[in-house]
Structures are given as C-alpha cells and as structure tokens.
C-alpha cells in the first residue's frame, strides 16, 4: 500500500474548496509543509494550502517555478485538459456540472430519453429470454 500521488513540481491538482473551486491547477513550487505555489493558465500564480487541493494522477514535466509561457506550453504538450476530460474522474465532474445546469425543459427531455432507453433495454431482454426459454 504505497503512495501513488505525490506532491511534486508539476503535479496537477484540483481545487476543492474556496473561490476557485473545481479548477485544475499545477503545483509549481512548494512553500512549506502546508502550502504550495500553484498556477493555471487562466489565473494569477498564488499560494494555496494543501487542504484545498486534491492531487490527481496527472503530472507534467516542468522545472521549479517556470515562467507562465513555459508552463502553458508544458501543459499543452502533456495535454492535461485532454487527459483530464477522458479520465473517469474528469468525466464524472463534467456530467455533474451538466446535470446541475439543466433547466426544467432539459430535465423533461432527460426523462423522455430515460424512458426510451429503458424500453429498448426491456425489449432486448425479452428477446433474449424468449431465445433461452
């Protein structure tokens, strides 16, 4: 049972508390045991407590405290956004966001789609039962 996700320079983390909740950031330097300097393409470089971060599996290759431009290039090269959106964690978050932003009409459409899908599944099941019986 070893640790797999380390705090290290280049580790991608998700902010889980506070004003920038839900943003993906890169750990760019470590201030001390509780805080890290953290940076993302669309925010000013700032320090955050580790308590506000959850580490992800994604790590990019950068030196300590890189320039903003270098950081953005490294993030593009490692395709952080792509890897995140394809990971199961990232996909779950996208779905959660979508569900939270539905309006009543959208929820009605979802209900119809669910009924249709359920109907198709039951048709298939009935066919399989007839074949095996």
């Amino acid at each position: 049972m070893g640790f797999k996700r380390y705090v290290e320079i280049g580790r991608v983390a998700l902010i889980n508390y506070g004003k920038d909740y839900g943003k993906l950031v890169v750990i760019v330097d470590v201030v001390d045991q509780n805080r890290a300097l953290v940076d993302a393409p669309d925010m000013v470089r700032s320090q955050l407590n580790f308590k506000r971060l959850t580490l992800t599996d994604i790590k990019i290759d950068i030196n300590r405290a890189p320039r903003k431009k270098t950081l953005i290039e490294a993030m593009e090269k490692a395709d952080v956004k792509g890897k995140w959106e394809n990971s199961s964690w990232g996909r779950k978050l996208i779905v959660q966001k979508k569900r939270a932003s539905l309006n009543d009409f959208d929820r009605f459409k979802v209900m119809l789609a669910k009924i249709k899908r359920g109907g198709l599944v039951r048709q298939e099941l009935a066919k399989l039962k007839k074949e095996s019986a």
Partner: protein
Amino acid sequence: MVSYRYHQYQVVGRALPTEGDEHPKIYRMKLWHTNEVRAKSKFWYFLRKLKKVKKSNGQILAINEIFEKNPTKINNYGIWLRYQSRTGYHNMYKEFRDTTLNGAVEQMYTEMASRHRVRSPCIQVIKTATIPAKLCKRESTKQFHNSKIKFPLVFKKVRPPTRKLKTTYKASRPNLFV
C-alpha cells in the same frame, strides 16, 4: 484573517522645528502593523525610546505602504526579533518561507503566540532580510530547498466544498487515503 493581515509601512518623522533647532534630523522607520494609524503610533513608540521626542512635539512627514515587489516568488525570510517573556526580554532569530515579507511577518507573530505565548504588543521586529538558500540556518526551512521535492499527503481529511454542506453526523466513515 483580514483583521490581522500585517502591512509594511515606511514612516518618516521628525521633531517639530524650534528656535533652537531649525532643521531637526528626520528619521525613517519601516514597521509592520495592521493599519496606518497603528503604524504611526508604533513609530512614536520606537522613536521615544531612541530620541527625546514625542508625538506632541514631533510630526510625521510621510507614511507609505510598502508592497511586495514579486508576490509569486518564494523567498526565505529571516526575522530578528526582541520579545518580552514572562521573565524578561530575549532576542530571537526565526526563519520563514513565504511568498511575501508581510506573510512571513504574520507567520512570525502567530508562531510566537503559539510557541511562546507571546502576544503581538510584546514583540519588536529588529530586522528582516531575504536570505539566500545557502545561508539559511534552520532545518525546517532548509528541507524545502530541493528542486525535486516530492512527498505524499499522508492524511487527507475530506471536507465539504462549502461550509453550507457541513453536517455533524455522517453516514459512513471517511476515506482518509489521499
């Protein structure tokens, strides 16, 4: 947090000119306090101890706030301080790693309060300096001088993302592993 965010001020003052002394010497101090009013008061406190001048026979010529030039760079700050304990006055040297000097000074005040039970009125900052990594003396700051630093977060407490979602009772035990 906002209430005791320490700011750095530069206060310039002198005694009032009298017939005996038309151009009294001007003194400048760099201080840390929460706001300008308190910084001015602190200025007179120190100046009284050094020269024969009080607020009533002196004037403040300028007070400016000093801001951090580069708050995105991490520095090692060494702070020399003089504090009053229950038994007497002592000098101390402490090191802090932070992005801004104000942050380091605030760390110093909270650390003195927690480790030595010294409250902020009993602390006098003698000197502060940005220390290059080679000259740091404390192991606790030197251990972060590693460009390939890597450590796991061992105990991860799960927190609700806003305080509104906080509940006293939980249905299941939390998973603390990363």
